[in-house]
């Protein structure tokens, strides 16, 4: 394979890497070229970003107010024990 061309497998891996680290100049160019030529990977990137956002948004407390109060009480009691010991 040509120096500048990536496989779809490699391209999607680089997209993942970019969420955490800076890509090298060569990697950036490779990725940009690949996305210009490959609709599937361009879609993948958009959807991957959307999934990231979706995950970071997920999850609400399943606890009711009374349960929260019960947990507070439990912790306070434990702290009393701790301070008494």
């Amino acid at each position: 394979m040509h120096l500048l061309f990536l496989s779809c497998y490699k391209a999607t891996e680089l997209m993942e890497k970019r969420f955490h680290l800076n890509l090298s100049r060569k990697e950036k160019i490779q990725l940009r070229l690949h996305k210009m030529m490959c609709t599937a990977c361009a879609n993948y990137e958009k959807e991957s970003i959307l999934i990231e956002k979706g995950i970071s948004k997920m999850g609400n407390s399943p606890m009711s107010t009374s349960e929260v109060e019960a947990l507070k009480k439990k912790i306070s009691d434990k702290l009393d024990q701790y301070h008494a010991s």
Partner: protein
Amino acid sequence: MQKEQLKKWVNDFTDELYQWAFYKTSSAITAEDLIQETFLAAAEKLQSFKGNSAPKTWLFSILNHKIIDYYRKKNSQPILINDNLFSNFFEEDGDWKKGKRPQNWFEEEQQLLDDEDFQKVLQECMSALPEIWNHCLQLKYLSEKKGAEICQELDLSTTNFWQIVHRAKLQVRNCVEGNWYQNN
């Protein structure tokens, strides 16, 4: 005096700390345990808390360490990566397999993110992942830490971490696309 201060924090921050712990561990029991441990650790360390950061920030940093410890213990087994997974998505030369090419989702990003049904599909697809992959996806969002730091704490090599997240993402994306567009 210190005791009273701690109790005030218990009252003020338990709710938020719990929400965070639950979101990170997906387990009510684990989340409760972690919050209790957090406050006990806070009681022990209170002397050294100089008030350089807000109490809430301090408590969250203790909790985040507890969460990382929890995952570290759980994942102390070496991670096995199933190489078959890639052949589900890619040909040997690295091209997408027919039928696995990501399609255009068309809807606006914000519209999808606000859609409760879409959120549900995403959640189901996350929980269908092998546990370790789910953890790695979740850990990416733990505090402000970068992925690389987190992998070090979990004793994973960096390469390993990418591979896991990459695999998890391929799987989740494919699952969401399948479920969302079948039902709509």
